[in-house]
């Protein structure tokens, strides 16, 4: 009952001036990435689909007929897209949303999961794509692997067994792609719609927007090719039926289940929604009925999963499983938290030293300051993230490819569910304790946009390593008590951050519309364990890290230069300021000279635009117990939270490079007095300040990364607003209630 719909006139062999465009599709975990890397070599580029953080990888390919482009599509089990994320694959394959339909689609077929793989191939064939099957995992399937020739006859397109690691089968695959590109486009259906569905399909097909019809989607490329007359207007009725099937099964306007598709013309949507959905399951069941009838004829045995089962018996075990899990997560966490530190310090020192040399060579002046403190320090601010980002992608890539990341989600789902997230959110949340920037980048391992967004909105609440110097300084300088109570307070700050992120995630998932928990199932595959191919992991690590530098790095650099300017200009000191140049020239000794220089710097900072902002916001932060000096510190902390410490160091004229262990700075804070002679920073202010740092969004790099990962300014603005408002309210309560109770 094979139903072929052949359009001989639409041949339009695409071998001509324009480069052929080849798409690579497949289920997740079928070795698609390995095949992509083997085919494209070093030419692959990682970028994002516009406005969305689904990675798009493109590489060059040399076919017998000439060069071509290979596009790696996100792994999927089905083309029936309901969300914007899933729509990428569908649009790319069907040639919707302004994209050029690929000339050939290579579908990766997992020999150990044949039926499920062929399901996707059937959908591609229904659309009218020219398909070639790449049969992977043949070694692993062993005796269960199907005969490629028999499979090829069954599905009606060429099937080439490939082993990407050894490049076996790749030349044959290229030849098959080449042949497919010259063949006629035809939609191939293995099932026939019922009479009732047929009526609906005809109605929907008649209403298809012009650009969605196969005549437009498969129109020849405008590169002076010879088009057989009439070809451009020819249509693939069955290919358009496939679009209609998608529309009928996926469009939904019901309250709880509305689809999240973008770019669907409203009147077309209206026509589709006017149909009855009584036959919703028919296409899916019809394909599976065919698969269950035909596939068993090809494969008589089943792949051996016993090794994976034995490993899972340990790794998913109640006790042993959690022990291994804790060990792996500790290694991961330490790699970001501690092991990256020497590299980060190294980069930091290198840039400082380089800046010092430059300053020496160029002499003092505004341009030198700009170059050294603005540009070079800014580049350093970007590159300090590189060690963590590299390690993150190295470990994540390894764990994902070997199959363990799916197990982490399985083990931790129950915990993450309590915050209306799923198990996939665990790893990013954990990384939040090291640094929000890699943590937010790690949300890419999550499938759904809503889950990614919610996770990246709560990750910045975790006690990141940049908060530690601030807490250390405040606790040491302002909080009295023994080392034990001080230590307990630090632990308390960690617990506080976990609690607030849990509550924030729960509240936002209940109140903010795009973040509301959908009734979507959390079903993930637990693939067989496989040893990752190191070369693939490294290539992915490099591709993703360089994309981070390109996209987030440029924003961070621009922001740090802007922030430098804010705290540098204007250079003129007010009339009332002493003549520091003369004073310094006549200083009796080096100590006096250094003190004068420090005071001059303090005056400059106070007089800068940033300093004026610090003054200006004093009325707003006074109810929290902060004065304008802390206000300037808060402005400086926007570069990175730990900069608060060195900014306060300048304000208090103890030098430009004070750190949290600086005794002069601690003393200055401890002895600081208000104008009426009271202590400026009683312990209550210290507590209020720590709470403010725990909650406030003071990190431009985090905002830059959220902007990149969420694809716009909306969510970084939301993040900034909610965290800052939350910080103000809670610090206000801490300070004011504390005062009412007689503290401070």
């Amino acid at each position, binding site marked *: 009952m094979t139903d072929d719909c052949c359009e001989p006139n639409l041949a339009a062999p695409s071998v001509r001036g324009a480069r052929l465009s080849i798409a690579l599709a497949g289920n997740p975990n079928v070795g698609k990435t390995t095949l992509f890397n083997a085919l494209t070599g070093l030419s692959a580029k990682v970028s994002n689909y516009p406005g969305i953080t689904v990675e798009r990888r493109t590489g060059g390919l040399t076919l017998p007929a000439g060069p071509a482009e290979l596009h790696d599509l996100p792994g999927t089990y*089905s083309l029936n897209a309901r969300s914007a994320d899933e729509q990428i694959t569908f649009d790319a394959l069907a040639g919707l949303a302004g994209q050029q339909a690929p000339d050939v689609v290579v579908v990766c077929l997992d020999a150990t999961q044949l039926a*499920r793989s062929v399901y996707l191939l059937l959908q591609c064939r229904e659309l009218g794509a020219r398909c070639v099957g790449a049969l992977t995992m043949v070694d692993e399937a062993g005796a269960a692997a199907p005969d490629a020739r028999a499979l090829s006859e069954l599905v009606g397109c060429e099937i080439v067994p490939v082993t990407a690691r050894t490049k076996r089968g790749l030349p044959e695959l290229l030849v098959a792609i080449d042949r497919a590109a010259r063949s006629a486009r035809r939609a191939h259906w293995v099932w026939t719609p019922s009479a009732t569905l047929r009526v609906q399909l005809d109605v929907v097909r008649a209403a298809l927007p012009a650009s969605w019809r196969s005549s437009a989607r498969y129109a020849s490329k405008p590169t002076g090719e010879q088009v057989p007359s009439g070809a451009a207007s020819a249509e693939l009725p069955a290919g358009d039926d496939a679009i209609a099937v998608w529309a009928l099964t996926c469009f939904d306007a*019901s309250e709880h289940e509305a689809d999240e598709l973008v770019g669907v013309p409203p009147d077309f949507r209206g026509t589709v929604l006017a149909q009855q*959905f009584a036959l919703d399951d028919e296409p899916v069941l019809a394909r599976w009925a065919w698969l269950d009838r035909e596939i068993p004829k090809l494969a008589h045995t089943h792949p051996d999963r016993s090794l994976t089962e034995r490993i899972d018996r340990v790794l998913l075990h109640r006790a042993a499983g959690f022990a291994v899990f804790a060990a792996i997560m500790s290694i991961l966490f330490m790699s970001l938290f501690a092991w990256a530190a020497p590299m980060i310090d190294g980069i930091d020192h290198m840039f400082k030293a380089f800046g010092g040399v430059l300053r020496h060579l160029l002499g003092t002046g505004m341009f030198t300051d700009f170059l050294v403190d603005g540009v070079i320090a800014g580049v350093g601010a970007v590159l300090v993230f590189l060690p963590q980002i590299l390690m993150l992608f190295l470990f994540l890539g390894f764990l994902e490819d070997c199959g363990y990341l799916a197990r982490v989600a*399985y083990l931790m789902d129950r915990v993450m569910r309590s915050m209306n997230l799923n198990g996939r959110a665990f790893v990013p949340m954990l990384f939040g304790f090291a640094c929000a920037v890699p943590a937010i980048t790690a949300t890419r391992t999550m499938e759904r946009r809503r889950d990614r967004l919610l996770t990246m909105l709560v990750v910045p609440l975790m006690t990141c390593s940049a908060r530690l110097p601030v807490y250390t300084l405040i606790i040491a300088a302002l909080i009295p008590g023994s080392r034990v109570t001080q230590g307990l307070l630090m632990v308390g700050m960690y617990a506080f951050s976990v609690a607030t992120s849990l509550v924030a995630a729960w509240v936002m998932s209940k109140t903010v519309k795009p973040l509301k928990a959908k*009734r979507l199932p959390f*079903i*993930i*595959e637990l693939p067989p364990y496989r040893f990752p191919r190191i070369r693939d992991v490294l290539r992915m690590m490099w591709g993703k890290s360089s994309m981070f530098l390109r996209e987030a790095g440029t924003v961070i650099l621009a922001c740090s230069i802007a922030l430098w300017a804010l705290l540098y200009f204007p250079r003129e000191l007010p009339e009332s300021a002493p003549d520091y140049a003369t004073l310094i020239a006549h200083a009796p000794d080096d100590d006096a000279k250094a003190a004068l220089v420090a005071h001059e710097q303090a005056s400059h900072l106070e007089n800068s635009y940033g300093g004026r902002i610090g003054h200006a916001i004093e009325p707003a932060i006074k109810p929290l117990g902060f004065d304008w000096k802390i206000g300037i510190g808060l402005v400086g902390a926007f570069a990175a939270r730990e900069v608060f410490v060195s900014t306060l160091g300048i304000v208090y004229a103890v030098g430009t490079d004070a750190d949290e262990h600086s005794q002069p700075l601690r003393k200055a804070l401890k002895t600081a007095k208000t104008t009426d002679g009271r202590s400026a920073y009683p312990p209550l202010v210290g507590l209020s300040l720590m709470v403010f740092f725990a909650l406030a969004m003071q990190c431009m790099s985090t905002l830059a990364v959220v902007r990149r990962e969420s694809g716009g300014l909306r969510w970084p603005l939301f993040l900034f607003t909610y965290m800052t408002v939350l910080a103000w309210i809670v610090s206000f309560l801490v300070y004011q209630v504390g005062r009412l109770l007689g503290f401070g």
Partner: protein
Amino acid sequence: MPSSLAEIPLGRSVKVRAIAGARAFRRRLLEMGLVPGVTVRVVTIAPLGDPLRIEVRHGQWSIRKAEAAQIAVEPASPAASNS
């Protein structure tokens, strides 16, 4: 004695009878091959009590109990099957 996948004992193979629940949820399960008549088995329960690890068509999936409860199953005895 029809029951759901969330209720059957670990390790016992059963057959999917029907899938209830919302449209998108049902179609997603169907598309991954969890169609009526297919054999399914709960392999283990996660250490924290949820989700379940199930085996369908020689592949394994993690699925929450609440979702498994939407999958009606029947005994997989040879007598019950008439394929």
